[in-house]
């Protein structure tokens, strides 16, 4: 009996799907970094670029979804093959949301009438660094099919929650002490919330990577913790 490899075309299609998901993740990760750079520098031109590029991310998810649907229809995938497709669907949705939050942050920059103050900004910068690291690491885990790396992202969420709580406290305190117009701080509270959500999506991606490689369903429940 020969054990020559079969279904080469299908295997290539699955590889291609994962390459597309990785590329989409890369785009969204860059969008988060650029949206924060635009916010910190008050660079509205860069912010507009991020908002325009969100359309590219939206187009990418349509392409990935179409690929997934076609592969299910034509190949009747099972076991690991099916998980590649199922996680392609799910991870691309999380990436698309990350892109949306980058868009929201960029829009905040565009809507500002005056540049943000350094003191307020530094409080969200730490949160942004944490969110960006989580997204990058989650996508790295996906590319490398690295369950351990994915697990590390899950644990980074605890740190993220602490930073978010601290940021929220600092910004709230600033509102109380400041007699100025608090519009800037309110905007930053929103940005902090967007960044915290980006971290959550990174955790989702990490959990799908674990499912992809082990078939184990893991879902962190924040309330239970």
């Amino acid at each position, binding site marked *: *009996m*020969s*054990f*020559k*490899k*079969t*279904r080469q075309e*299908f295997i290539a299609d699955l590889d291609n799907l994962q390459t597309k998901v990785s590329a989409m993740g890369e785009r969204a990760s860059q969008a988060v970094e650029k949206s924060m750079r635009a916010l910190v520098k008050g660079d509205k031109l860069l912010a507009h670029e991020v908002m325009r590029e969100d359309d590219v991310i939206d187009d990418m998810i349509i392409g990935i979804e179409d690929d997934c649907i076609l592969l299910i229809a034509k190949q*009747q*995938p*099972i*076991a*690991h*093959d*099916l998980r590649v497709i199922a996680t392609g669907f799910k991870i691309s949705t999380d990436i698309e949301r990350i892109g949306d939050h980058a868009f929201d942050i960029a829009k905040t920059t565009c809507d500002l009438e005056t540049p943000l103050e350094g003191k307020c900004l530094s409080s969200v910068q730490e949160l942004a660094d944490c969110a960006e690291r989580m997204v990058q690491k989650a996508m790295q885990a996906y590319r490398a099919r690295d369950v351990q790396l994915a697990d590390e992202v899950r644990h980074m969420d605890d740190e993220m929650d602490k930073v978010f709580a601290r940021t929220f406290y600092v910004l709230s305190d600033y509102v109380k002490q400041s007699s100025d117009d608090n519009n800037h701080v309110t905007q930053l509270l929103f940005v902090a919330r967007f960044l915290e959500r980006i971290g959550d999506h990174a955790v989702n991606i990490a959990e799908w990577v674990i499912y992809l490689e082990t*078939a184990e369903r893991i879902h962190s429940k924040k309330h239970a913790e």
Partner: protein
Amino acid sequence: MKMNITNLNLYYGEHQALYDVSLPVPENHVVALIGPSGCGKSTFLRTLNRMNDLVEGVHIDGDVRLDDEDIYADGVDLVNLRKRVGMVFQRPNPFPMSIYDNVAYGCRVHGLKDKKRLDEIVERSLRGAALWDEVKDRLNASAMGMSGGQQQRLCIARVLAVSPEVVLMDEPCSALDPISTMKIEELVAEIKKHYTIVMVTHNMQQAARVSDYTAFFLNGRLIEHDKTDTIFTKPHMKETEDYITGRFG
């Protein structure tokens, strides 16, 4: 367990075709046997009602039990065994006689002559095989004029007529078109309420759709068996995953 197979080895003369196979067959469930051609799954299926006895030079060791009775024990009545463990083959094989006579055949062989009782059994069996409505007006027509899908359901009706406990199916849909295949699959889902079914299939999706348990054979060995949901989502053995995902052929 309806049937229990333990440490079964089978030899065609010097050639060993099955190696130390152990498999439980739970009552009123469907067990699918999958694996590449020549892996031993049909050979294994035929050991369950001793069809291999007809092949010259076959000898087996191990234990095959039906309701805890050793079917290879001395003095086992083979006609009665095959009444209890019926078989449907790959190609429909109706006898060249009427639809009615095909279904009544087994009961007549077992000595039933009462026309009224035979009528009841024929109708019940044809209904059980989801064929009654299509043939009730032409029961005396030749079975050879039926379509392939109808002939296969007739063969199932013929098996059901003698009230078996276990039905063995050896690739029952491989010669049928997709619609007839779906009808047979629906039929299997229906009749498993009353019978235990062991089915050999080359169609992975069919195994996934119709069976409760799946056993994967390779080179005469049972590589793994588990709930079908597990085999098709998270098989334990790499060989199983490679086979069900079509990674080798």
